[in-house]
């Protein structure tokens, strides 16, 4: 159906009007508010000791949670796709759980395990380990909320590439590790990269779960999203806006990487290009 002109313009108005009011105007306004008085104030706000500490702590969350969930994700996806097992369906269900749970409930769950009256809290504090209201608890929350991304991105890629090339490699004498490094990993690299981008973005921006386990101690247990909320509640709007802009720019970068990564993944196709494989295979032989 080719919409007639009035219908077409009516639909356009509705679509753009809604997007404008809900999306563009608020996001545009916050950029304008931040840079209203030039670059100076936001830079000052982001270089205060509390802000710098928040940035550092946020990066620490990423540095721990992302590698752990990536290694777990790739290994788990391999086991789920390549090795039939009765428990696979259960594992698959559990992996998707974090996406079904409100972040606040995730925070509560960690509070119940590691709090003073929790399952592990008393024992751990006897050993002098503090999990709740300190960095380890926040890392656990970050791992929990971002756990499914890599598995979910890698599983469909593994299903699509099939096992022919892996079998060819092992027929030619490559051992399991060589096959993984030279054949499987190059074939799933875009899926892994995609998963890593999404995991990183989630850890950077996580608020609900971290807020419960952090205890909100300024300069100690404050990530960037918590810093934004606290600054706003203390009427330090400049700092709140500046922190929000940093997070928004990171989100826009994620969007960009998502669309580039999507195109790359499509371009490399379901089956890795023949040339790629030949190179990998000859390398595999040289290496052995």
């Amino acid at each position: 159906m080719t919409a007639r002109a009035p219908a077409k313009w009516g639909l356009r108005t509705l679509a753009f009007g809604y997007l404008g009011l809900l999306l563009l105007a608020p996001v545009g306004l916050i950029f304008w508010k931040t840079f209203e008085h030039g670059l100076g104030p936001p830079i000052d706000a982001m270089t205060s000791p509390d802000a710098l500490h928040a940035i550092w702590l946020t990066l620490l969350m990423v540095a721990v949670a992302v590698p752990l969930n990536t290694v777990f994700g790739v290994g788990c996806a391999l086991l789920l796709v390549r090795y039939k097992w009765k428990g696979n369906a259960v594992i698959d269900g559990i992996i998707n759980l974090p996406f079904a749970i409100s972040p606040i409930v995730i925070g509560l769950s960690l509070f119940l395990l590691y709090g003073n009256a929790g399952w592990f809290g008393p024992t751990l504090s006897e050993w002098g380990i503090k999990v709740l209201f300190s960095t380890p608890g926040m890392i656990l929350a970050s791992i929990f909320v971002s756990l499914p991304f890599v598995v979910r991105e890698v599983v469909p890629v593994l299903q699509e590439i099939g096992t022919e090339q892996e079998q060819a490699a092992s027929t030619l004498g490559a051992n399991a590790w060589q096959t993984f490094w030279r054949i499987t990993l190059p074939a799933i690299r875009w899926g892994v990269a995609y998963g890593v981008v999404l995991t990183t973005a989630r850890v950077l921006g996580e608020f609900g779960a971290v807020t419960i386990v952090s205890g909100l101690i300024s300069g100690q247990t404050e990530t960037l999203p918590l810093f934004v909320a606290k600054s706003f509640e203390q009427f330090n709007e400049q700092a709140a806006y500046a922190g929000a802009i940093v997070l928004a720019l990171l989100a826009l970068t994620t969007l960009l990487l998502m669309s580039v990564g999507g195109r790359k993944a499509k371009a490399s196709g379901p089956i890795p290009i023949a040339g790629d494989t030949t190179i990998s295979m000859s390398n595999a032989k040289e290496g052995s």
Partner: protein
Amino acid sequence: MEGHPATIPTAPSGAGIRLPGVGVGLGRGVIVLYLSLIVMLPLAAVLDESLSGGIGAFWDAVTGAESMAALKLTVISSLIVVAINAFFGTIIAWVLVRDEFPGKGAVNALIDLPFALPTIVAGLTLLTLYGSESPFGLDIAFTRAAIVVALCFVTLPFITRAVQPLLMEMDREMEEAATSLGAGGFTVFRRIIFPNLLPGILAGALLAFARALGEYGSLILISGNIPFKTEVSSVFIRSQIESGNVAGASAVSVVLLAISLLLLIAVSLLVRWSASNQPGILSRAVNRIISRSQVGGGP
């Protein structure tokens, strides 16, 4: 495998090579341990705590006046938001697929912004435009309208992204045939286009509803969190934790968790049911949405 050319012979099942050098059993053990420590034990603690006072206490906590008011507010605002976004989301999908205009690629990429933006930033952003310092004088902060606006923002992409691929794959011959037989634009939409898009609209709506039910970060600044007035369930859970009523917080958490699990099961049934008409399209769209919608935060 789906979409594989038939020329490549498929491996006999069970002939998969042993990929990692370490034993498969060991790998499984590590995965089960990791999932237990990170996911299952914490959730078991919530379930255990919610039942710590027996089933009666659980029921009292969930049906308490403040808890009930929060739950009612959460469900009703989520339903309103889903209806609004079903309408606008379908129109946006239509404009993005069937219309041509400069900058379409950019608009298409921007649709995912609410998914990528950390929820606290989303809340702050909306408060700037619709709060006490609104440049348009539109101060709705600390009202129920603010909750609806915030939830509209965070769930905006769900229905558009579920409908878009269905619309792209739709056979236009049916529409042309109907038009040539004398059907007007609205009749063609009602009889041909809408039934084809319905599975996408429903799947997107269910996912958006699940997200709205558990939303926290984007509401905390703008809703005001006034008990009985603008306190949604997730905020109620937090206030109960802070006031020491952990068992009550856990009981409401278990209810939220149960509802979102039911919604996810409904989505997967819907995807399976629609697979007979459009193999794989909706399933891929839903899988993509589930991952993307989690990037900025939220259930």
